[in-house]
């Protein structure tokens, strides 16, 4: 029976870690723009802040 207590405590801990990781991802901008970057790769544009030369046509 005591194993159940331990498992509940563990599950709470893992939940906490999952939420922390998710918050970290959001704060570091991972989900800010999920479309633009993919589209930019296709049409050869540079995103603001990227300095590399576009391929010459």
């Amino acid at each position: 029976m005591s194993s159940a207590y331990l498992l509940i405590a563990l599950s709470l801990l893992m939940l906490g870690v999952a939420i922390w990781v998710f918050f970290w991802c959001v704060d570091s901008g991972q989900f800010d723009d999920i479309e633009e970057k993919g589209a930019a790769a296709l049409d050869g544009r540079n995103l603001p802040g990227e300095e590399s030369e576009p391929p010459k046509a």
Partner: protein
Amino acid sequence: MSVSAAHLSWQQQGDQARTLFFAEGMRCANCAAAIRREVGALPGVERIDVNLATSRVSLAWNPSQLPLAKVLATIESLGFRPVPLSGESTVRERDRQRRSALKRIGVAGLVSMQMSMYTVGLYAGAFSGMDADMETLLRVTSMLLALPVLLYSGEPFLRGAWLDLRRRSLGMDTPVALALVLAFAASAWNTFTRSGEVYYDSVAMFVFLLLLGRYIEQSLRRGSLDASEALARSLPAQVTRVNDSGTQRVPLGDVQAGDKLRVARGAVVPVDALLESEAGILDESLISGESLPVSHRAGDRVMGGSVNVGGVIEVIAQARAEDSTLAAMGALIERAQAERPPMALLAERAAVQFVSVILVLALLVAGVWLWFDPTQAFAATLAVLVVTCPCALSLATPAAVAAASVRLSRRGVMVTRAHALERLAGIDTVAIDKTGTLTGEHIRVVAVHTLGELDTAHALRVAAALESGSTHPLAVAFAEVPTAGLVPVQCQEVAGEGVEGSIEGRLWRIGRAEWVARLAPTASDPGQFSQARVWLGNDSGLVAAFELGDGLRPGAGAAVESLRRDGLELVVISGDRPAAVRQVAQELGIAKAYGGLDPQGKLSAVRELQRQGRRVLMIGDGINDAPVLASADVSCAMGQGAALAQSASDLLLMNDSLAAVAESITTARGTVRLMRANLRWAMVYNLCAIPLAALGYVPPWLAAVGMSASSLYVVWRAHRFAHVPQQSLPVRALPVSAVTV
């Protein structure tokens, strides 16, 4: 970020100042109504318009009576966050909002997954017997997890409901918040008294699904923001001015006509200007709807708001920012958004009443179930509160209208009146002014008939040489014809007859047929070319006949054809000579044509059509046709530049092409269909869902899915309508220079 009045830019004219800003946190018709009511009641506010679909507030007030800060404070006290429209802060604010929304969803989602584990444990325990301590432990753990979901993730709902409560009104959040608090409170009570059921998992699931639905809905709505509005927001706050000593960054407001400005690649041309650099490539899509970049040469007019997609260019400003095309467009957009279409008004009022009906209904359901079967009462009441969706009702029309204006702005059509779309859908007759719409404004040679020795090209050259010195109005028809070095000598103009002169030793006459023919000793017969207005002849008789006309605009034929295909009757109404009007009408296959009308005559022609029960769309060139445009059911003008702002018409064709008219009518019809379908859907959904929920057939989680799905469906349909596939755009020739970009 707290917004102070200093962050907002505003224009002042005399006693009146105007500004535009976002009010973040607007979720429903009720929120918009609250801002309108509370701010409208402040002394010194002359007008306030709140647009729910775009979360924009447009304000006209008297700054000497009322500081802007007071208005912003009032809006903040209502629970909204005023955000300036332009530039970086909007983007930052949007990111901030998006991130916190994602975090809320994340917490709710992860917790509901975890909680379903405990719920399985509780169910299993209920079947196979479980230690009472263990059961309490699982319930308490669930409660501890549900608490952050309710207070953190569910905060938008609770806050919305609380603000509504404080305003003593009912909003969209009221039923949801009520359901959440009730479910949590009842579960907590049962946990402490160790009795009954707990609904923690339902609370978490509700919050998760409702937040998810709202998040997707808001992303879709942002995507539908009017393109020209996005443009108005993209204007830079500072521009680079070039002077003798170098370059200098100056505020946009300081730019004067005549200033030389430098526009970097990817930057927006800030004001209407002339191109100074050798060549430039500009993306004018946001202004004219032209989808391909346009190449310009030195001296060309470039419009404020076009994006420089080529190398760095320099331009000479022609107007101040507030007198440029873009500012005029902004004013028109503002005007369009100030009004709300009749159908939207109706739906908004209905949605607010709807909430109070739901609350009464939930009370009834709870009472009836308590009477017959108390164990089911709670779940059924929750389901009724959550499943009903006033959002779909209040979003149905604004979503459709926003979608339509996005779609039209891509074709270069600007809707400047809220009622325009609804009226345009009912149009059955199109009245077109000829000059400036069907035909160009300049007289041109439309046909050359030669009678003898000369070929067409030579006849044109001689004619052009003779006419080159003439001041007669018809002479401009030959202005664009190259003379190839022919110079007439002893040129003289005979009033009312024509021009006489000798070229390469030979005497020529150009003008009226009889007069030209008199130059030759023998009479010659104009024959079958009696329609021609200008004749060329020499001593051997008539040589060539020129038909003049103000040639059809490119694309006019196709545009007329597509209007006819849509089942519209076409009428040409013009002030031009009846013969010329008839000719153009014939060429286009239009049966009804009235020529020689003065503005009053045009007006009565349109009135007459209306008396016959027709609903008339009048297309004119804007400024000259103002009275007749105003009298038509819907008016459509062509125009560019600052003159736009004076235009009273409902629709504006920004790219001078008639082709967009048929497209606009199709879009308007589609929009009205979409509005009706959306409203019908919201109605049917609620009528079906409420009885089912009241009878206890809808488990609480399904109720949350149902509500989210129903408002998502409405917005998604509008979104799909706005973004029709690009293939249906008219194919345009690719400018050579654009290919290499």
